[in-house]
Structures are given as structure tokens and as C-alpha cells.
């Protein structure tokens, strides 16, 4: 019986290792944190704070809200990291906390309910010839004015994109989560991720192009 329990426990340990989704760097930090190292938590903060801050900024549009999202995320991480079993990547886990923080903030602020974007509203009509004026981002120093204008336009379009599409675009195209990861983090189906991502991209394209074709992004 003892031998059986030994083998069973050994298999459990192997399974835990095989089920671990964190990379080695994060895993070491998590292990150190669980042993009481505050320095490990500081390193986790340093690793993810900028991404989380920018995520908060894109989702909420305000520096103060971005700061709140970031703080709420790390507070949540501090509370939950001791029991985190690494069944997902640390980044994914942190962004799940951040996504919930965004939702809570919207509820607190009593923001307008999320609206649907229909695919029909984004379809080009035959006469458009498929042309959309989308500038390239340039890091040429002489293009500072264009960069400032571009930044303003893309930020405006992002804020106008309804939150349920905005978060998917952020996760898929900017944070690099794949469809399955995004679906898992947000608690939606992979097909919903694909549908929302497609509409988000079309919406943003339309808004940017409208500005540079001489119009304004749609309200």
C-alpha cells in the first residue's frame, strides 16, 4: 500500500510539472514568492507593469484609470499568487485579473452598456474599390507631427470601439494572446473571439481611414 501511495504521489508531482504552463523565469519567481521573497514579487511587477499600464490606458482612456487597473491587478496577484497552480501562463493569469478590474471599473462608473457592431455596417460598398487610406507608422524624426496626429487618431478610434471588441483586439493583436488563450481569459468561445476581433479590426480601419481620407472617425 505504501509503495502504491508513493508511486501515486510521484505521478502527481510529475503531472504537476507537466501541467505547468509558466515559463521557467516566471516559475522561479513564483516559487521564490511562495517561499516568502518580496523581491520576487517586485521582479514580477517590473516584468509586467508596463504592459498592464498600457492595457489599462487603452481600455479606459485615462491615466488615472490605467493606474487603478495596474494597482488592482497587482493587489489581486499579491492575494492570489500563493495559491496559483501555474495551470496557465503568469501573463495570462495577470491579464485575467486586469480584465476583471476593467469590468468592475466600468460598472462603478456606470458606463453605457456595450453595443454591438454589425458586420453589415462595416461592409464596403462596391463603389469603394476596397481602398482605405491607412498610413504607415514612421519613426523618422522629421515625421514627428505625423506621429502625433496618428497617435491621436488611433487613440480616438480605440476609445470609440465598444469594450467587448476593444479587449479582444488588445489581447489578440497587441498582447499576443492566441485565440484559445483569449477565449479562456475572457470566458467566451473561440468563435466569439474571432468574430469580435474581425469586427474590431474593420471598425478601427474604417475610423483611421475616414480621418485620412478627409472625414472624421464615426461617432
Amino acid at each position: 500500500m505504501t509503495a502504491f501511495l508513493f508511486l501515486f504521489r510521484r505521478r502527481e508531482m510529475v503531472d504537476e510539472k507537466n501541467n505547468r504552463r509558466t515559463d521557467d523565469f516566471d516559475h522561479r519567481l513564483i516559487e521564490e514568492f511562495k517561499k516568502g521573497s518580496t523581491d520576487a514579487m517586485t521582479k514580477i511587477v517590473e516584468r509586467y507593469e508596463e504592459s498592464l499600464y498600457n492595457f489599462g490606458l487603452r481600455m479606459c482612456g485615462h491615466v488615472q484609470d490605467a493606474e487603478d487597473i495596474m494597482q488592482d491587478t497587482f493587489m489581486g496577484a499579491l492575494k492570489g499568487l500563493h495559491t496559483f497552480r501555474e495551470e496557465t501562463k503568469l501573463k495570462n493569469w495577470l491579464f485575467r485579473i486586469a480584465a476583471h478590474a476593467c469590468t468592475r471599473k466600468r460598472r462603478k462608473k456606470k458606463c453605457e452598456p456595450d453595443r454591438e457592431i454589425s458586420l453589415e455596417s462595416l461592409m464596403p460598398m462596391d463603389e469603394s474599390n476596397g481602398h482605405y487610406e491607412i498610413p504607415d507608422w514612421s519613426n523618422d524624426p522629421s515625421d514627428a507631427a505625423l506621429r502625433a496626429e496618428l497617435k491621436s487618431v488611433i487613440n480616438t478610434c480605440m476609445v470609440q470601439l465598444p469594450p467587448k471588441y476593444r479587449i479582444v483586439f488588445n489581447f489578440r493583436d497587441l498582447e499576443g494572446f492566441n485565440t484559445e488563450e483569449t477565449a479562456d481569459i475572457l470566458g467566451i468561445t473561440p468563435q466569439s473571439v474571432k468574430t469580435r476581433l474581425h469586427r474590431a479590426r474593420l471598425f478601427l480601419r474604417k475610423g483611421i481611414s475616414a480621418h485620412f481620407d478627409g472625414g472624421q472617425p464615426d461617432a
Partner: protein
Amino acid sequence: MEANPMHEDCQNCFEKISEFMDGETDEGTCEKIRGHLRNSPKCRKCLESLEKTVDLYRKSPHEGIPPDVRARLRAMMEMCFSRG
């Protein structure tokens, strides 16, 4: 004069073009879209403009965390650590 709605093949391509961009269509759909793109300059431009849109957002630089924001975060973490 009313604008014409999209041709059916263009519409089918339009609906799946993001998944095609991401390599997430099945092989049959992928081949269909590739074939359609060869013959449809308009749909090729659609794909290109979507790629450019995503690229534009990816290339726009991250905002740095303002020093006071960073300092407040550090202070908050220190306070939590000292509470145990």
C-alpha cells in the same frame, strides 16, 4: 444612384478575411480565399488595409509609466509587504 452590394464571393471572403490573416481557416476555406484574392484586387486591398491597420497599432509606441504612478505602485506594494 444606389451603391451595389458586395458580390457574393467578395462577401464570403470579407467575412473570413481576419481568420485567413491569422492562419485560422481550414484548408478548404484557405484555398478558396487564396484563389479569390488572385482574382479580386478589391479584396486584396481589403486584406492589405487590415494588415496595415493592425501593424499601425502594433508599431505605435507604448506609453511609459509616469514616475509618480510608478512610485505610488511601489509604495503600495511595500505597504502590503510590511503588513505581511
